[in-house]
């Protein structure tokens, strides 16, 4: 028994070792060397006098990397990182100085307090557009600094709060120990960022950052992910703030105001918000400016700090004016063009062809109505989608086709009516809940995520079926998370193969032609493993060969047991693929049946076909 366990453990370790060797690149070696060099630097270089400053800088860098979780991953323009540093710092200071708590519990408390503050802020601003998020977090920064200056009692008066000496296992934490701890935390924060950014949670965040509505359509829990990114960003700041206050041994409220938030934000932007090392690079640039300012100011006999704001501002304007948001991405782009990078062209080994639908169910809509003020968009519409059939919804412009699709996909709630999948009423279910039950729609306009590659795009769809690879499991690379990732990739590749985009999988999605972008949206929807697929004008902009391919694609999907709804203007195309046709006029169904039955209908002839011929 025990030998089996040992054997299993041994083989698992061997497998892990193989995986690490397979994933080991030049970059990994460089990163390891950099961390090692940073760790042994205090022992080798004559830095002892600078240790407190260096440690403080490293903690600030940790907070900057934390901010990149909100700014870079989620695209939230947060100007409140200084606040969360301050929350961490003052929780720590109060717990230690007034509560007499030991070091570790108070650190935990500080992280929890900062995460809660970040979560609340994220909740309050979660649905606002960028300009309003920036304004609200900026106002929050000012509220904190104004409160602390108006009520000095809150922060220990003019002296601030003085902390007792921090000890771990009876030994004092020296500035050098703080520095080493900071380097380790910084490395962890950077690695975690890199791990998350390229995997399912990061890809879903990237999709939501670019185009929230199509991301919602693929079942991405946009609000929850953003909230999580914001809270994580605040938690990291809280830890950095708490440790920073242990280092300084006094909590000074003046340090956590808008200036700090501004510095951290600009550091992240200037360095490159989406690169793991960007914030550190940006912070280094800012430090160069402030040191230069100190030197120049000292020569001119000005009080310290007088020139700092000015030179920092000028320097940043110079960088920003040169168009340099993201020094690291720019450097990388330069490097890639010099080296002539090639997207990976090796044929993928694991492609899982799209499976037939399991547990196929019909979708029945009854009495759907929707008004936009005085306009009746849908009027008591009944619609039946049967597994293994293609149902086309046709009608003149403005007849309510897209409104019907949106009501089915959950993007827009109808005023009345019921939608039932099998015997499961969908009622008020969200887009995500519907997508998980297998009802997925694509958008009428091409809405791709420009920052993602073709494969990553499909992975966003495949991510809907994640169960055991949330952010934490992804971060710790649990076996289940890795298995699910491999599985999702196989399915994503299968969906791409089906629509004919497998060869393009390494290309940025925005390089594709308009029609292929539509196919990519379709592939992402297929990667969610839908039962019912709602397509809004998939044939728009297709050439005749592309149309032929689309016909066989839709027939293949029908063969796999999907129930398909198709909104289409091109009646030749409808004739080739549709089993059932419903004609809408002014939100009402005026005819339903096969295309020939519908074409013979008096109402349809009167309303619609008088102007066209089949």
């Amino acid at each position: 028994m025990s030998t089996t366990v040992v054997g299993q453990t041994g083989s698992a370790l061997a497998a892990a070792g193989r995986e690490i060797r397979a994933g080991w690149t030049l970059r990994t070696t460089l990163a390891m060397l950099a961390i090692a060099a940073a760790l042994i630097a205090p022992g080798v270089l004559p830095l002892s006098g600078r240790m407190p400053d260096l440690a403080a800088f490293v903690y600030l860098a940790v907070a900057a990397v934390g901010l990149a979780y909100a700014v870079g991953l989620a695209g939230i323009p947060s100007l409140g990182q200084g606040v969360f540093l301050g929350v961490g710092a003052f929780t720590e200071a109060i717990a230690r100085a007034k509560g007499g708590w030991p070091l570790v519990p108070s650190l935990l408390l500080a992280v929890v307090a900062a995460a809660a503050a970040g979560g609340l802020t994220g909740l309050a601003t979660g649905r606002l557009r960028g300009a309003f998020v920036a304004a609200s977090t900026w106002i929050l920064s000012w509220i904190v600094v104004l409160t602390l200056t108006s009520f000095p009692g809150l922060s220990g008066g003019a002296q601030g709060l003085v902390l007792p000496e921090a000890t771990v296992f009876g030994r004092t934490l020296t500035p050098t120990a703080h520095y080493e701890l900071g380097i380790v935390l910084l490395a962890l924060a950077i690695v975690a960022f890199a791990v998350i950014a390229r995997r399912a949670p990061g890809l879903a965040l990237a999709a939501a950052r670019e185009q929230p509505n199509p991301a919602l359509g693929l079942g991405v829990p946009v609000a929850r992910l953003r909230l999580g990114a914001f809270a994580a960003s605040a938690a990291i700041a809280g830890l950095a703030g708490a440790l920073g206050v242990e280092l300084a041994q006094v909590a000074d409220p003046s340090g956590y105001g808008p200036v700090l938030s501004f510095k951290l934000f600009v550091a992240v932007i200037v360095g490159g918000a989406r690169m793991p090392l960007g914030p550190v690079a940006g912070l280094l640039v800012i430090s160069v400016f402030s040191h230069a300012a100190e030197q120049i100011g000292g020569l001119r006999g000005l009080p310290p700090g007088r020139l700092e704001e000015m030179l920092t501002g000028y320097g940043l304007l110079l960088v920003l004016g040169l168009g340099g948001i993201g020094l690291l991405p720019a450097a990388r782009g330069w490097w890639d063009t010099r080296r002539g990078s090639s997207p990976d062209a090796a044929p993928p080994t694991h492609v899982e062809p799209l499976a037939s639908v399991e547990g196929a169910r019909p979708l029945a809509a009854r009495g759907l109505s929707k008004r936009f003020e005085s306009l009746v968009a849908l009027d008591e519409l009944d619609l039946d989608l049967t597994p293994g059939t293609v149902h086309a919804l046709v009608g003149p412009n403005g007849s309510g086709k897209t409104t019907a699709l949106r009501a089915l996909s959950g993007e827009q709630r109808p005023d009345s009516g019921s939608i039932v999948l099998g015997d499961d009423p969908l009622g008020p279910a969200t887009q995500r809940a519907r997508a998980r039950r297998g009802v997925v729609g694509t958008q009428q306009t091409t809405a791709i995520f420009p920052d993602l590659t073709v494969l990553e795009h499909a992975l966003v769809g495949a991510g809907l079926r994640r169960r055991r690879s949330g952010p934490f499991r992804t971060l710790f690379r649990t076996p289940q998370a890795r298995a699910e990732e491999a599985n999702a990739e196989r399915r994503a590749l299968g969906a791409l193969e089906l629509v004919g985009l497998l060869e393009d999988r390494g290309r940025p999605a925005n390089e594709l032609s308009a029609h292929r972008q539509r196919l990519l949206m379709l592939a992402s929807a297929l990667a969610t493993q839908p039962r019912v697929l709602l397509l809004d004008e998939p044939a728009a902009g297709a050439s005749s060969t592309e149309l032929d391919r689309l016909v066989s694609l839709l027939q293949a999907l029908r063969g796999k047991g999907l129930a398909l709804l198709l909104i289409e203007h091109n009646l030749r195309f409808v004739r080739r693929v549709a089993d059932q046709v419903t004609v809408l006029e002014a939100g009402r169904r005026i005819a339903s049946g096969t295309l020939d039955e519908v074409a013979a209908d008096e109402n349809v002839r009167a309303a619609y076909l008088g102007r066209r011929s089949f």
Partner: protein
Amino acid sequence: MSLVVQVIVTGLAAGGVYGLVAVGHSLIYRLTGIVYFAFGDLVAFAVFVTLLVAAGTAPVSQTSLAPGRFLLALFVALAACIGLGAATYVLFIEPYLLRGSTLGWVAATLAIAFALRGMIGATFTRPAYVFPDPIPFDRIGHGGLVTIAGASVQVRSFFVIALAAALAALAAWALERTRYGRALQAIASDVEGARFVGLPVEGLVALTFGVVGGLAALAAVAAAPTAPFSVDTGTLLGLKGLVAALIVRFGSPWAAFCAGLGVGLAEAAIDNLRIGDFGLGPQYGEVLPLAFALGLIAYRSLRSDAAFGRA
């Protein structure tokens, strides 16, 4: 009663300046969709240029000023403010707007704010400056104070209120009645359409960045002698104007102006009024309006049924 009168007069005088800043924030938001975080600092820049030209960087007494030189100073300051506002837009903001980069313009407007703060701070090195008063209000009443319903209020306050209201009216009128104003409305409602009919959109928007700064700066200069003026005064002006503009969701000039008056009144009332034994006192005056605005934004965000991208 006397306290109420005093609160109303000082509140409206402060609020008039906030209101003009709010008008500027609203106009800029409606034209470009951005929040101009450097607005208050641009206003402070104009105020300090006025001071520089009128009296230099040395300490000044409130009355040692020739009206002619002051008018020259005001003219130079307005020209500099308009030029700088337009230049910052063209150089640092528009490139990011064209790329659709929210993060870019937020960083750029903040960097402008801090560059301006630093520039002023490096020239005017003392913490705060007493501003010269070009109009001899001290000859009216008792050294510039008059007594109304038992309250003694500064005569200048009435001048500031009247000037601010006149400037707001001017802005509202210009927006409705002049070619420039109608062009701005066209841009606000449909940029592509405005471009299509041949409006010089970039130039008009750039000019507006300066003009709204100048408008607010006029009121700020008029109010400046009331209390010592510092770099932070300017930044806070920008912040409070932004709060007022947010309360009315970047609405029409009149809505924004009235919201500014409201913020000013609320501040003065919180600072001074007592109901029985209960009074909040000056330490709450700045914080509470900001907190109220933040709460309002959060409430609207949570209540809105739109999924994303609503105010």
